[in-house]
């Protein structure tokens, strides 16, 4: 009887031991899996940031270039919030900041071949490089109009970017080829039936219609609530392309503000240069081109950029003045 009781205690002890040891081993393996997942996410995030940094550095040296980059297997998400413009892999807790880089992209890019297009932001002198970043999962649908506004931008878009030119009536027959994002571009005067778009296209893929008029004024119209519009006054061509590429008013506004801020800085620099030219020329007749009246054209552009007002007219004024100087032997203002 005594032996049987001892054996019973031993059996219970073995079970308790097995339970404790099993729980410990299970805990250790769960920790390993957790740590590995965290490492994998951090590594992917670091790789994404590294890839993007390398890309930006290379592209800065290749202005006005277009390239079909390799496929990336992760999805990058671009955001604009109170902390500024940032990007990272979806769900990452530590997104990379884009404090001064002028990058126009849709909200999500990736899990596809990406396309990069570099242009120089000119106002009319070079301000900075602009990177348009999109992918083969984003389709740009341009709607024909009498004024050919959207058509002109269709022609400007490189072949590497998925695009199509159609009419507002034929939009109803558009067959979704399974793209992740769809961005529709139209002339402000062109009428389209938003209810048909909502019925025919997946509204998760399309959030806004980008509307452009002949003065390069851009309007983002919310598909779900067409009364909700976001307007941007007269912009330069490069910035209108940026609006089309993003298809998102919030992201566009974020990058536009950086572009305008840099325009203001470079314009102030050009103003300072004009003052230096004024001093260097002394009493030479060329001096009239750098007088305080002409310095005001720079001041006007600087003020417009500072106050986030339309800049296109001021850019044209500076260009016209420079064209006049180019017909003389005097040093151009840019």
């Amino acid at each position, binding site marked *: 009887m005594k032996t049987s009781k001892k054996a019973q205690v031993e059996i219970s002890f*073995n079970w308790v*031991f097995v339970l404790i*040891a099993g729980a*410990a*081993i299970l805990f*250790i393996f769960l*920790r*390993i899996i957790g*740590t590995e997942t965290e*490492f994998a996410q*951090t590594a992917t995030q*670091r790789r994404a940031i*590294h890839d993007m*940094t*390398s890309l*930006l*550095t290379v592209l*800065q*040296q290749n*202005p006005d270039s277009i390239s079909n980059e390799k496929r990336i297997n992760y999805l990058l998400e671009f955001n604009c919030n109170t902390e500024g413009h940032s990007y990272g892999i979806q769900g990452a807790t530590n997104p990379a900041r884009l*404090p*001064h880089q002028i990058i126009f992209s849709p909200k999500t890019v990736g899990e596809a071949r990406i396309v990069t297009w570099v242009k*120089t932001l*000119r106002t*009319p*002198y*070079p*301000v*900075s*490089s602009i990177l348009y970043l999109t992918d083969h999962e984003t389709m740009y649908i341009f709607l024909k109009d009498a004024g050919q506004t959207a058509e002109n931008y269709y022609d400007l878009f490189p072949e590497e970017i998925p695009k199509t030119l159609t009419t507002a009536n034929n939009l109803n027959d558009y067959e979704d080829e399974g793209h992740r994002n769809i961005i529709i571009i139209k002339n402000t005067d062109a009428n389209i039936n938003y209810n048909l778009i909502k019925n025919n296209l997946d509204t998760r893929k399309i959030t806004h219609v980008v509307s452009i008029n002949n003065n390069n004024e851009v309007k983002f119209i919310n598909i779900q609530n067409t009364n909700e519009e976001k307007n941007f006054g007269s912009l330069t061509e490069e910035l209108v392309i940026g609006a089309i590429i993003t298809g998102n008013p919030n992201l566009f506004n974020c990058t536009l503000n950086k572009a305008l*801020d*840099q325009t203001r*800085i*470079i314009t*102030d*620099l*050009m103003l*300072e*240069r004009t003052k*230096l*030219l004024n001093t*260097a*020329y002394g009493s030479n007749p060329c001096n009239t081109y750098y007088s305080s009246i002409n310095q005001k054209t720079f001041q006007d552009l600087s003020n417009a950029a500072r106050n986030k007002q339309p800049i296109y007219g001021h850019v044209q004024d500076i260009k016209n003045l*420079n*064209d006049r100087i*180019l017909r003389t032997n005097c*040093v*151009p203002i*840019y």
Partner: protein
Amino acid sequence: METITVVIIVMILIVIGIVYATNQKKASLTEERERTKDIEAMTTATNVLSMDFLKCTRGSATRETCIDYYKIKALNNNVFKEENYLHFYRLFGESKIEIKIIKNITGKENENITIYSLEDTENKTSIIIKTPITIEDAVWNINYFGIMEVTAYR
């Protein structure tokens, strides 16, 4: 008793394995971080060299490796203005950008223009990148030979 010993030994081996794997991961991450810092320093240098607004222009045409003398002077006057400072700090970080203009072979009239300087040398190594450039004084129609020296701290 034997069972307990075997289980304890197995657990010790697992713990040793985990500690080793973690250390290896940490080491590779530290190495990667160092590499990233090197890239950041190189990026600063590239940012300077690709500043389109400093280049010599005639209308829309830009001359590569040529820098406008009056633009450098203007940048020098504007870079540390309060409203511009943050922009240039983001662009150049902790670095020093100096342009040496060789006007005379004797060196007497040579001009050094420091267009940006934010030095924090404490416990930091630096990468110096020197690039030959042409500096154009369009008013007097003279092209000078110059060296752009970018010292990036990391």
